[in-house]
């Protein structure tokens, strides 16, 4: 009995240990139209709350864990993004836009703090620490770039352990920040397999930063299982990218596109000018390009990461059913099919490659339609004022969608809220006049904080909402201009949250267990705002010119005032006699003055 209970407790201990910290990784590959390829990497590991507090780190990265503990951050979302998601061609965003960031760096976190001031101080410490960890200028996220969004962001984790009034959500964005290899290096170092094995071995800066669109995300959230067992802290690292297959397959030593030899081009022979040296290339739409992982990424997957659990497939390829796909490896591996999905489990110690040949297929994958299309541009001209124009389109023919539109504007761009207008143009002229449901606004203060504008809108079915407002551009101080002021100033992308249908505004309900169920997100591109920029050499010109003018004017007036002009013949010649006469004259003049003055007084 005793032995039995011991064995039982041991098994429970072991299973709880296995549950306590585990590691998963998954790569989803989906060819998109126009020879694009979506590669979505996901790495997920976790740790128990106790282990985290005791600083026993297993798969959870210690460097990040200590920062989170130090700054009392309960939930963290960090994004590094580059490029534009072409929704017209590629459809809805992967992961419902939940793992996407605005161009540059975006960071938002829920921080546990008793007061606002404490939360702000911890937020600044967090941004500073993360800037050191991720080689990015996140220390530039100060009060002018920080906002507290009202209803755009939802907690993904379970925060029942922390009192809700102590949780502060802060958000900051750096649209100007470049994302490059130095950000990928620390990202890979957080992974248990460090990019040496498993799907992370494909992550190479040369390909990742050549992508048409890429976003790297780190998300930390507490997860409490429904059965009441111990809460876990989960870290979710994501890299989503869209590669141009043709571009990626260029040899790395010679990436400059050069025309193919005419023998290798399929010519359209129906053209009248077609000949041995003239060729109009045949229309290639409908022909799926040939590619392989090794050609696209420059290397195959280097075996599986030994820390992943074997049950789940690691590589998922989503292609039409008739597409020929060959998995290649020196070792055996498991593969299976589920509809359009091909599932692969990686071999333990051997390279793995996927090869697809050129094929023309009748069937193609249907793209998921995004719930809303959004674009944003500047209007107006001149150096003083400008306008913002955001166009939100609901493509659905039958259902209206509710969205929340968030903008965080820099302080030198001052919107006039009274000019904010939302108009609907669509198929049905009888729909509600005003799409604006509510407006949250916090005006900017020069050099201290930016504008925070958050709008709740309803877009009727098959119609377009146009948001416009006018703004004024501030004139910066001479020293406030960056070294490349003429480039313009980046304005962070607008964040659009599409509320789940039917639109509900109950934010008190439990957060969704997975982000697929809840609302979806999309972001516009960042904008480049030209500000009135001085000619930086001008102050020097002005200084030089004014100095010259002053020197000439002042000099001549001064000369007129202090100098006595006499004829050349009146000047006594040099020598002792002359000097003597001069001194004598001076003394006489002085005597006459004192003597004369005194007499005058007596009279």
């Amino acid at each position, binding site marked *: 009995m005793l032995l039995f209970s011991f064995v039982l407790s041991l098994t429970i201990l072991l299973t709880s240990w296995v549950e306590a910290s585990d590691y998963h990784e998954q790569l989803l590959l989906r060819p998109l139209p126009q020879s694009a390829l979506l590669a979505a990497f996901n790495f997920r590991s976790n740790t128990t709350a*106790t282990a985290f*507090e*005791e*600083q026993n780190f297993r798969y959870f990265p*210690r*460097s990040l864990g*200590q*920062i989170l*503990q130090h700054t009392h951050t309960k939930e963290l979302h960090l994004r590094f993004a*580059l490029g534009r998601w072409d929704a017209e061609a590629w459809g809805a965003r992967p992961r419902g836009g939940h793992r996407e960031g605005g161009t540059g760096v975006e960071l938002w976190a829920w921080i546990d703090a008793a007061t*606002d*001031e404490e939360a*702000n*101080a911890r*937020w*600044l*410490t967090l941004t*500073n*620490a993360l800037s*050191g*960890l991720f*080689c990015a*200028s996140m*220390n*530039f996220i*100060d*009060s002018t770039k920080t906002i507290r969004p009202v209803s755009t962001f939802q907690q993904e984790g379970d925060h029942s352990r922390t009192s809700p009034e102590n949780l502060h959500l802060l958000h900051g964005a750096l649209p100007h*920040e*470049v*994302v*490059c*290899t*130095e950000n*990928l*290096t*620390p990202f*890979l*170092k957080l992974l248990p397999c460090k990019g040496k094995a498993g799907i992370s071995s494909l992550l*190479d*800066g040369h*390909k*990742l*930063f*050549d992508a048409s669109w890429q976003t790297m995300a780190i998300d930390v959230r507490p997860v409490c299982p429904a059965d009441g067992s111990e809460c876990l802290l989960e870290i979710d690292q994501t890299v989503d990218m869209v590669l141009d297959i043709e571009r990626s397959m260029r040899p790395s030593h010679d*990436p*400059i596109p050069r025309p193919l030899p005419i023998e290798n081009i399929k010519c359209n022979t129906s053209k009248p000018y077609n000949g041995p040296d003239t060729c109009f290339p045949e229309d290639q739409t409908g022909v799926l390009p040939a590619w392989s992982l090794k050609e696209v990424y*420059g290397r195959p997957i280097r075996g599986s990461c030994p820390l992943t659990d074997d049950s789940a497939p690691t590589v998922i390829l989503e292609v039409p059913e008739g597409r020929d796909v060959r998995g290649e490896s020196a070792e055996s591996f498991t593969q299976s099919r589920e509809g359009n999905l091909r599932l692969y489990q990686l071999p333990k110690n051997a390279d793995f490659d996927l090869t697809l040949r050129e094929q023309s297929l009748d069937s193609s994958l249907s793209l998921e339609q995004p719930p809303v299309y959004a674009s944003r541009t500047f209007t107006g001209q001149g150096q003083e004022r400008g306008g913002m124009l955001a166009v939100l389109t609901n493509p659905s023919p039958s259902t209206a969608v509710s969205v929340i539109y968030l903008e965080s504007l820099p302080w030198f761009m001052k919107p006039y809220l009274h000019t904010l207008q939302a108009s609907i143009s669509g198929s049905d002229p009888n729909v509600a006049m005003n799409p604006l449901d*509510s*407006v*949250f*606004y*916090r005006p900017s203060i020069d050099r201290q*904080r930016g504008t*925070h*504008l*958050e709008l709740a809108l309803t877009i009727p079915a098959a119609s377009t909402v146009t948001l416009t407002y006018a703004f004024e551009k501030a004139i910066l101080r001479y020293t406030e*201009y*960056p*070294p*490349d002021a003429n480039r313009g100033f980046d304005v962070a992308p607008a964040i659009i949250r599409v509320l789940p249908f039917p639109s509900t505004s109950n934010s008190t309900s439990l957060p969704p267990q997975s982000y697929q169920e809840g609302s979806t997100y999309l972001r516009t591109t960042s904008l480049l705002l030209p500000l009135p920029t001085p000619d930086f050499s001008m102050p020097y010109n002005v200084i030089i010119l004014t100095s010259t003018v002053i020197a000439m004017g002042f000099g001549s007036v001064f000369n007129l005032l202090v100098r006595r002009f006499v004829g050349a013949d009146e000047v006594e010649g040099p020598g002792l006699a002359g000097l003597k006469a001069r001194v004598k004259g001076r003394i006489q003049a002085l005597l006459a003055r004192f003597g004369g003055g005194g007499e005058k007084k007596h009279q």
Partner: protein
Amino acid sequence: MFASGLPGEFSGVNGVGISSTAKPKREDLGLTKPYVPPLTLTGYDNPVPTSAGPKHVAYIFKSLAMKFTTLYALLLAAVLPYLTTATHTSNWAVLVSTSRFWFNYRHLANVLSLYRTVKRLGIPDSQIILMLPDDMACNPRNTFPGSVFNDKSRGLDLYDDQGEEGMGGIEVDYRGYEVTVENFIRLLTDRWPADYPRSKRLMTDDRSNILIYMTGHGGNEFLKFQDAEEISSFDLADAFEQMWEKKRYHELLFMIDTCQANTMYSAFYTPNIISTGSSAIHQSSYSHHADQDVGVAVIDRWTYYNLEFLETQITSTSSNVTLGQLFDSYDPVKVHSDAGIRYDLFEGGEATARNRKVVDFFGNVQAVEVDGEKGQEGSLAEWRKDLEALNNLIERQRVVMNELRNDSKPLAVKADNDNAEATVSPEKGGKGLFGGAKMVDQDYSWAKKALGAGALLALGSLWGLGSWMDR
């Protein structure tokens, strides 16, 4: 990186005898060849009276060694602990490019080449401060995304080498607008706010050798930062003086590749600095060659020939090549300008400075530090004692943890975060700057308009009343 610990803590806190204690042990082991440590006789902390120059001392020692070997060993054992305080215990590198914009590609390539070299010779990323004011690798103009090359053969990617050796990625500490004169001076003098990340700080001490390499556009006694501001040679000299006063370096090698570079170190007045520059006053510093596919010049001449020397001559971290040999390799015909070297600030002057090994600045300290003074038994006993103390510490911690756990407060077991929390000055985390947005009232009712009209009317009548009373 942030959690990679504090390298400064490990380096030479208890001054005397890290390598000194190792050396007499070689005598104990019965090495037949008398060991004459080269640094011991020339170090700046040399306790031998100044009347007897280092060479003189060396001569005395050598004659002694010839005549009375045993006496020599004894004497050496007695003197060594003082003499060898001159060695350094850590190496740091500050690599700064000061030019923005694509056409200055070569300046970033210069710095990245140096970065690769010092990393190859063993200085870890945590001890390299890399300042890149612009992004060349991921620049839209770059035909080779994610790569920076310093040669038109494009054999070596400086940004992220995927070759056999590899670089293990790249870590840029200061980039973009962060590369400013203020940040550079702050870095050197280590004046930062409390919550500044460690990876962006130069955490050196008086036993650290520092390599400072700068490149950019400059002129007579100034160097431009990002085309927006400039640092003068006097700023730099004063910063180094502060570093010296704060015991932030042991020896410093200052290298600069810019036009009229040699004027940049003319104002230095602090000991133990060896300086070298690419070009004399009124001379330009030229680029070496351009890559037609990159579209711009990829490296500067002086840096190119420095690298050529470092790549071909310094093949291992134990290389004995001296700085003198490196400086002698500067050929004005190849470099197209007159490279300058300044030795006079260095303790021991030109001869000593030239005898310093290149890896004393470009490589990391490799020596294994063995505490051999107590002999094998003694050190073993000390090791046991340390282990015991460590065990006690772990045991005590375990007891505390258990007590806390038994108090049925599972969340009470916490890292001591609160005491360690950095303070942020109040004006930074100021009130009212971070607050939330307020809901805007969208009520366009008649009441609001009536209120407005009423207010207007009241004010108007007040004005009318005033002017009537005035009459």
